[in-house]
């Protein structure tokens, strides 16, 4: 802080909360709520810049409301008439909450446990300092050039400052290992923000191994990253983008667990369930991993006899639900080698699959990948030797709070234990209240955007520890493209404007009016319905009387 010249306000005294203080600014020093300010305190004989966030602003001296009686008469005119000075008369009382000073040993904020003395000058925190200390970047000074760091994602800039003045870079490693949640209502920029993160993760600095579960086909513009100059590395690196369309998505029947099969069967009786689980376990003990429904039926008939009624009923159900579903195949499988690779972003397009199939393919894939990661970490042979990150669009489909989804179990396992095995999840959803609380609460980093539904706000409050009151208060007032970033990737929550994408955005709303018009014109060009043929012969009945 450089003396009084840059001072924007003066501390008046402590506030209501232990970490709160009140300060006064004149009208021309317009400070927005959410702005970061600093003051200097001496901690252990060293001068430290303590950061604080402005949380409230109220007018304490201004023209009386009686002066506003007539909308046609400016209050200043009334004031001048009465000889009241109108220049800079307004005084504001602002409340700020102490965040702390940046402790270079702990590389996070430490609370000085003392409020500034009344009369302490306050200044606006410098951009560069904020860039260093707000995200959890682990810098050993409080004013480093963060763009030199590796493995950071430039997600946007502080909303209160001018565009690109204070850029926020969050550490990719942090959110990729402790999971990420992007929560926002429809149209406020969830997929846009996710795409910005994907772009950053696929850059030459990170070269992530990414898997996107895309139930709506919103990520097809990511392919532009291939061959795009910004994404090329000096060593010739170029990100790969692989699309897996629904036709190539296959689940090998032997990969299913008995619970998954039960989920797709039509209402099996207890006896059927018993028969099926016995046979399924015995099939899974076999060497061959490429068996189908026929082999399973044979096995059941072998155990219970060919005339068993339950086996007959099961056969019908199994053939209807599994054999006739193209998703299941006795042999074919999605090869893990194809879908995970460093520097590769695989988009699993599931837009033509129904919800149950989306859940099943997700369950099986997650289970296989988790097993491989487990093997890799335990030093066994593994198909996936590197950490992976999977992003779920419409996350509430795969880990719903109510109703059962076969994928819920594996999602819970990965969010609670995946960190140890280098398996990170990213959940994107517009209905936080519909996501399983265990899954949501394990997402260490949160990017929350505009959310107005009180249930959803409540879900965020309940499940996200880092979401303080000030974060929640901001949520209804955000506009699309603005977000609150909080959690493990940040030292303190910050309100940001998400940066522009380098690739085009493909998930915007449909241009409805345009489509209607086109469809109407199309219809006009086509021949209209033919007139009813007149077969002749009959006598005209003439104009019918209505009564």
């Amino acid at each position, binding site marked *: 802080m450089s003396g009084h010249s840059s001072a924007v306000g003066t501390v008046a005294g402590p506030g209501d909360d232990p970490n709160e203080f009140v300060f006064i600014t004149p009208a021309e020093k317009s400070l927005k709520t959410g702005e970061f300010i600093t003051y200097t305190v001496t901690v252990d004989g060293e001068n430290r810049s303590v950061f604080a966030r402005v949380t409230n602003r109220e007018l304490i001296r201004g023209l*009386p409301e*009686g*002066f506003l*009686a*007539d909308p*046609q*008469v400016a209050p200043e*005119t*009334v004031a*001048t*008439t*009465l*000889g009241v000075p109108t220049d800079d008369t307004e005084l504001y009382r602002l409340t700020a909450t102490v965040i702390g000073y940046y402790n270079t040993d702990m590389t996070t904020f430490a609370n000085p446990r003392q409020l500034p003395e009344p009369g302490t000058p306050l200044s606006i925190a410098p951009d560069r300092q904020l860039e260093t200390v707000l995200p959890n970047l682990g810098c050993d000074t409080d004013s480093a050039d963060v763009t030199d760091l590796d493995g950071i994602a430039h997600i946007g800039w502080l909303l209160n400052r001018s565009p690109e003045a204070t850029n926020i870079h969050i550490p990719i490693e942090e959110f990729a290992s402790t999971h990420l949640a992007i929560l926002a209502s429809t149209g406020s920029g969830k997929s846009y923000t996710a795409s910005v993160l994907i772009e950053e993760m696929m850059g030459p600095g990170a070269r992530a191994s990414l898997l996107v579960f895309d139930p709506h086909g919103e990520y097809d513009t990511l392919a532009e990253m291939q061959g795009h100059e910004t994404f090329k590395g000096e060593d010739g690196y170029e990100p790969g983008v692989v699309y897996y369309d629904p036709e190539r998505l296959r689940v090998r029947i032997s990969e299913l667990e008995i619970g998954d099969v039960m989920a797709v069967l039509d209402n099996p009786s207890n006896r059927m369930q018993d028969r099926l689980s016995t046979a399924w376990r015995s099939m899974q003990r076999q060497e061959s991993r490429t068996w189908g429904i026929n082999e399973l039926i044979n096995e059941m008939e072998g155990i219970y006899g060919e005339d068993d009624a339950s086996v007959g009923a099961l056969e019908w159900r199994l053939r209807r639900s599994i054999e006739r579903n193209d998703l299941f195949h006795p042999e074919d499988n999605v090869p893990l080698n194809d879908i995970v690779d460093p520097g590769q972003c695989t988009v699993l397009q599931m837009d033509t699959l129904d919800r149950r199939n989306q859940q099943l393919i997700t369950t099986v894939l997650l289970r296989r990948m988790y097993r491989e990661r487990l093997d890799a970490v335990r030093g066994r042979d593994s198909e996936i030797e590197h950490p992976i990150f999977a992003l779920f669009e419409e996350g509430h489909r795969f880990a719903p709070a109510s109703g059962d989804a076969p994928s819920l179990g594996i999602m819970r396992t990965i969010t609670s234990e995946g960190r140890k095995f280098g398996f990170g999840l990213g959940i994107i959803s517009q209905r936080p209240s519909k996501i399983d609380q265990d899954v949501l609460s394990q997402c260490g980093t949160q990017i929350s955007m505009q959310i107005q539904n009180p249930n959803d706000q409540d879900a965020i409050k309940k499940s996200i520890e880092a979401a303080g009151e000030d974060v929640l208060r901001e949520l209804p007032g955000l506009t699309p493209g603005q977000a609150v970033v909080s959690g493990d990737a940040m030292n303190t929550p910050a309100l940001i404007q998400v940066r522009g994408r380098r690739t085009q955005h493909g998930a915007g709303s449909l241009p409805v009016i345009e489509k209607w018009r086109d469809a109407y014109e199309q219809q006009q060009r086509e021949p209209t319905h033919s007139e009813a043929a007149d077969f002749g012969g009959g006598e005209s009945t003439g104009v019918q009387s209505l009564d």
Partner: protein
Amino acid sequence: MTESATDVVTPNLDSCVRIGSIVSSNSHLDYVVEILKGRDCDRPPELHEREFGQPVFIKKVVDGTEHAVMGVIYDTKLVDPDQGRTGPRLAQDDQAQFTPGYIEERTTLAGVALLGTAVITDNRSIADPTHRMPRWTLEVDDTVYHCPDEVALSFHTVDEQLQLAYLDRLVDIAGDLGSEVIVALIDRLRRMLPEDDPSQRTLDVVEQNIEWQARERRGVV
């Protein structure tokens, strides 16, 4: 508003009606004026010329420049030294009441609060009005003149804008009748301004505020 102020031919300050003379003061800004009666001068002020809320001025030469110290009648008081006196009264059939000597001592006093000052120009009108507190003290026997409305308007036009910047001081001096004297002044100004003058609305707002505050103080609202 400024146009109208300049359009009007301001009356000659020397031909203004004399209202009375200063007899005492309660403070630097608060003077007591004895109203002239028929025997004191040729043309005593009419009742409406010395009414509540009437702007007045006192001429003062300060440092070679002639100034008008502007004021307003904010209170009046009747004085009868005979009142309450008991004792024999001389009366006869053709004269019901005979009170020799004292009859001329009945008088009307007016309280005048000072508002500001202006310079008296060579063409006997005022210029450079200011609503700051006058620094000069008036003297006993200083003559108080009736201030014509045109002069009052030009006194209230500061920097081409209508002003009543003395308002807070006037409320202090006038006390209970503070809001009434201001409303009376505003009425006077309003009559002088054209209907469509933007200042009319400003005056409305000021009046509303003053009246509201007075009603609040008096416990009406």
